[in-house]
């Protein structure tokens, strides 16, 4: 799954939780698509995570999560011909799409969070 490390990517968010990464993608993308764990992008990278997994698109840039066991979850973006193709593939599937305008009314997931924030504890540890 480390083929992603060979590509030209930018790190948008690093060493955080999966939930926070999902929320970041939902807030920062023009289009959001939800895929199941194991969805393959860039020919050989399997996106893993806690369902639903968000993939975001802004112009030709694809936003996605990347989890490393010892370092947490990262949000990466790739903007090239391959990402353009991946976004087109997601658009064709069209499932679970939200647009920038529909996201405005979407409530945040904070209502389900436990009273003690594990995210804060974990972040402080790093």
């Amino acid at each position, binding site marked *: *799954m480390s083929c992603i490390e060979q590509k030209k990517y930018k790190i948008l968010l690093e060493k955080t939780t999966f939930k926070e990464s999902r929320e970041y993608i939902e807030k920062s993308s023009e289009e959001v698509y939800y895929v199941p764990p194991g969805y393959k992008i860039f020919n050989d990278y399997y996106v893993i995570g806690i369902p639903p997994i968000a993939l975001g698109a802004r112009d030709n840039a694809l936003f996605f999560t990347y989890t490393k066991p010892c370092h947490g*979850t990262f949000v990466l973006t790739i903007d090239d011909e391959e990402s353009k193709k991946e976004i087109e593939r997601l658009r064709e599937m069209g499932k679970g799409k939200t647009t920038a305008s529909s996201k405005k009314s979407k409530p945040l997931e904070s209502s389900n969070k436990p009273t003690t924030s594990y995210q804060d504890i974990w972040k402080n540890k790093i």
Partner: protein
Amino acid sequence: MIDAKVLLMMGCPEVPIQTSIALYLSHKLTNLGLDVTVAGTDAATKLLKVSDSDGYYAKKLVDLDKTLEDIIEKRNDFDICFAFMHNDAGMTYAATMGAISQAKLYSIVFGRHAETLAETIEFDCEKIVATAVHNPVQLKNKLDRVVEEIVK
């Protein structure tokens, strides 16, 4: 259940008890007749290889990401999975396993913040929780009871 294929899925080996519990559980389940595979990150498998250089306790040692890839591509699967986790990334891997595999999933939650981490688990699994970092005995005892139920 004796013929079952079991996967022990190790995460980041930063918390010491993971290695000892993985070796213990692998050996115990193997002795009970189960087919045990231990998957881990590069560092986690190296720790196991050095601790168990003859492969006496862990017979099958494989790469974690390759194992998930094989399950996603339906080249392999398991009946039971024990997923070790002491951080959010470990939980992310376990949730993935819960979604891609037909295995009965046991989440082994440990480390200083085990209780808090366990509360955030939203996927279907049986939780085995111990706030333990260096002393594996509490977790070992809990796992003994779980294994007893599995082989009943």
